[in-house]
Structure formats: C-alpha cells, structure tokens
C-alpha cells in the first residue's frame, strides 16, 4: 500500500512542477510585452498630442509629426484590404467547396501554408521586380498595397478554409437536399455562417500587415515625405480621384525606423510616440477581432 502512496506522491510532484513551469513560461511572455508597452509609454506618451498627429516630419524634433506616415499606413491598408479580402475569400471558398480533392489540390494547400511563412522581404523583392519594374506601377501606394496583399493572401485563404471547415456536413447536405445549387449553398449558408471566423482571420492578417516594414522599404517607400497624396474625394468633377494610388508614400514603421536611427535623442522620443500609435492601432484591431469572434460564437454553436 505504501508503494502506491510513494508513486502517487512522485507523480503529484511532477504535476506541480509542470504547473509552476507553465506559469513561469506564460509570465515571461506577458511580462515582456508589458515591459515593452511600459517602456514605450514612458518614452513617448509625453510626445503624443494633436500637433504630433497632424504635422509632417521635419529636421527639428519638436516640430516633427506623423501625419504623412499614418495617412500612408491608412491608404496602404485600404489597398491591401480591398485586394486581399475578395481574392483570399474567393480562393478559400473555391479550394474548400469547388475544387476536387486530388494530389494537385493537396499540393496547392501545402504550398499556400508555406507561403504564409515566407520572409516578408522576399515579397518585397518580388514586388520590386514584378510591380515596380515589369508592370511599371512605380513606387506608389498601389504597389505597396499590392505587396502587402500578396503577403497576407495565404493567411486570408487559410482562415477562410478553416472557418468553412467548422460548418458541419449535415448543414450542407440539408441545403443540397432541398434542391440548392452549389453557389446557393455557398451564398445563403456557408458564407453567412463562416463570416465570423473569416473576419477574425482577416483582421489578424491586416494587423500583421500594418507592421510590415521590410517589403515596403524594398519597393521604395520614402522616409521623408512632406506632402499628402491627392484626396480621393474632390470638389470638382469627376469627384472621385484615384491619383492617390500613384503617389509616393511613407508608413509608420518606416518613419519610426528612420527616427530611431538618428543620433539626436529627441527623435527617439518621437519614434516612441509613433510606436505607441502603431501599437494602439494593432491592439485595437485585435480587440475587434476578439469581440467579433466572441459574438459569433454566442450566436452559432454547432
């Protein structure tokens, strides 16, 4: 009998040790993130004010602001979203519902997952050769947006497929049994039911794209811009302008990098401020994704 007690005691000890180790590992991650945030806050919070957000960069640290950077980030994100979302969702739906399951589609599935892991600078190189030189799109917002769209396309495709996979087969069979065509099943059932998971995946992909620096530097994003692209809405006909697509641009991470590299300490404070803005935007996007996922899970439980 006492053998049992010893063995049990030993296993309980191991259990406890692993419990503690797990907590330590979790804390390492959380504490690091927390320290990062606190450091940024301490350095940059003072700098955040309305003029910072509405001024162009400047040689003088006190006057430098992130206006052109965050406008550039916003415009790039718009192009990325409008490109990657329709393409990615459509490709995900096709691969999951329409394509036959054979060695070719298996190969495609493996390669899409691989593409998600390709270093982002490779996408920059590809975009430089293809978009900037071959297609002559120039070093513009359009090129930057398309580059990031390529980057996050695999993530959107995988997120769409995973969301579609959670729909039970019985729902599909019921819809078909009532006499639907495949498109009707996709449009009236599969897309509406999977929108929560797909949207969550899209937002996470976009929040990754927001912080990408290397591919944009490669295609020629500038670091000092003292003007804004032409506004998309104009007073005079034709009222909608796409000139902003062809405009040179800068983005927040690049601006941060540029400032941090300078010897002047005040610029480092600016960089911290810009970093705070970036983190707040990223965390907000992720928070929206979490809220969406929570609301959808409450509504639809398979």
């Amino acid at each position, binding site marked *: 009998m006492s053998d049992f007690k010893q063995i049990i005691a030993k296993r309980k000890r191991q259990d406890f040790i692993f419990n503690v180790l797990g907590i330590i590992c979790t804390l390492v991650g959380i504490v690091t993130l927390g320290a990062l945030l606190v450091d940024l806050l301490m350095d940059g919070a003072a700098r955040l004010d309305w003029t910072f957000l509405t001024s162009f960069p400047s040689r003088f640290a006190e006057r430098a602001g992130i206006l052109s950077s965050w406008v550039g980030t916003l415009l790039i994100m718009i192009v990325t979203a409008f490109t990657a979302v329709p393409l990615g969702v459509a490709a995900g739906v096709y691969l999951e519902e329409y394509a*036959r*399951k054979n060695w070719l589609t298996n190969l495609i599935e493996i390669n899409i997952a691989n593409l998600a892991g390709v270093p982002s600078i490779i996408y920059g190189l590809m975009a430089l050769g293809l978009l900037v030189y071959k297609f002559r799109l120039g070093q513009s917002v359009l090129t930057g947006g398309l580059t990031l769209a390529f980057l996050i396309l695999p993530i959107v495709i995988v997120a769409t497929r995973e969301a579609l996979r959670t729909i*039970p087969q*019985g*729902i*599909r*069979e*019921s*819809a*078909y*049994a*009532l*006499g*639907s*065509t495949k498109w*009707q099943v996709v449009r*009236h*059932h599969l897309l509406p*039911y999977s929108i929560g998971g797909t949207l969550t995946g899209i937002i996470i992909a976009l929040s990754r794209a927001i912080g990408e620096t290397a591919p944009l530097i490669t295609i020629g994003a500038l670091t000092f811009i003292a003007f804004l692209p032409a506004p998309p809405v104009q007073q005079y006909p034709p009222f909608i302008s796409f000139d902003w697509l062809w405009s040179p641009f800068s983005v927040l991470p690049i601006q941060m990098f540029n400032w941090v590299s300078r010897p002047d300490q005040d610029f480092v404070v600016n960089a911290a401020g810009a970093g705070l803005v970036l983190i707040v935007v990223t965390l907000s996007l992720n928070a929206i994704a979490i809220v969406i996922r929570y609301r959808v899970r409450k*509504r*639809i*439980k398979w």
Partner: protein
Amino acid sequence: MTSTNDERGPAVRLRVQAVVEERADSEIAPKAEVSGLNFFYGRLQALKDINLTFPANQVGAVIGPSGCGKSTLLRCFNRIHDLYPETRYEGKIILYPSGINLIGPETDPLEMRMRMSMVFQKPNAFPKSVFENVAFGLRLRGVKGKELEEQVEQSLRLAALWDEVKDRLKQSAYTLSGGQQQRLCIARALATDPEMLLFDEPTSALDPIATAKIEDLIFELKSKVTVIIVTHNMQQAARVSDYTAFMYLGELIEVCPTKQMFENPTNKLTEDYITGHFG
C-alpha cells in the same frame, strides 16, 4: 407472396399484386420501383442487386444491422451520393407516375432533389430564424411575399409545430429543443411539397416523448406523401410502418407487410435479426 428459400441468396422481389391481394382495402399504386440497383463507393460495392417496390401513400421501413446499406439505399433516392466523389449507380429507380429513372445518367440530380425531401438523423436546422428555415426551400422555388408566409404556416401546422413556434418565428432555430428542431426539419422538408419523404433514422437522437410525437406525425403524413423510413429500431418499424424491408450486408433479404415480418418472417436470417440473435 413468392416463397423464398431459407438461405440468403438472390434478392427477393416484392410483387405489388401480392400486397394488393393481402390488403383488402384500397388500391395501392407503386410510387417507386427499384430494380437491379447496385451501388459502389469507389471499388466497394455497398448495394447488391436490390429489387423493391415502394407503394404510394404508405410508410415503408428499411431495417437491418449497422452497415447493411439501408442509409445508402435511401440516399440514392435524392442523389445525395452525387455530392461525393467516386460514387457509382447501376440499375434503375423508376418514380411513378412520371416514369423518370431517378438514378439515370440523363436525369438531373438537382431536379430529383427538388422532388424528394430528406430528414436526417441529427436535427440539422440552419442557424437562421424558424421562419427562414422553413422558407428556404420555398425561396429556392421562387415563392415570395404573402404566399410564402402562408405556405410556411401550413408546413409548420402539418409538422405539428405551429402552436409552439407561432410567437417565435423570428427567433433562431437553435432556441428550440432537439425534438422541436427535428419537427422543424420535417416542416422544412414538407414545405416544398415533395413526392416522397425520406427519413434517415429521424428519432435516434431524440428522447421518447419527442420520438412518439414524430412517429404520430409520420403516421398522419402518409396520406399526403409516400414515406420511407430507415431505422435501426425494430420496434419503431413495427409501430410506424405498413411494410418493412430487411437488409443485410448490402443485400435485400426480405420485404413484406410489417405485421407479417414481425410475426411470421419467411427467411431465417430475418427471424434471427428480429428475435435479437444478432444485430
């Protein structure tokens, strides 16, 4: 009734004439006639030379142990197998009175699915409102507006669910209990005015009270529609059906009126299954 030997051998053919002779009452016309049906999942033959007639406006039960092919047979009727790769039909299923071969290569599976309705084992109501669940099949057929509302109400009444849901038509179908959801699926299946109703073990996931309600419902529905019910519950087949077919390992062993099957089966294998010697 053609006599059979005791061994499992070639499939038994039910002759409609014989059924008519045994039932002194109404004229029974055939609704669907299965002849020489073989079905393959890839290289695996799941159904072997099935010959069977389903009379109109009757409830036909298909029983047998797991893996005998009863669900496979049922799913041939609305061509659900076509959704999956490497499935192959041989033989004929003739639908009366139109004379269409359900599994012929020239028939459109979509059209067949619009003539049949199926209720599955797990109540899989759509995560939409109660109204939209029933309305979906109707919308596919272009029904709109007031007519749509009336037909939805009629289907819910037919499924004995109207009184329970009339105040919550706009609520999600998932707020209903399991039994209610299954009756909702039946209402959804009825809304499209099908020629045949195919039930694939409809009550195996439900409690006895819900099961009893659905069995009553099936009994009432047969005056409007021909019903085929696949069940692994022999007592249910005895309660609900007019005639029963017993299948084993992809072959049809015996088919006859329910009373006869459970009291006096001809085939030894049937008798062994009914009495519980295997299953």
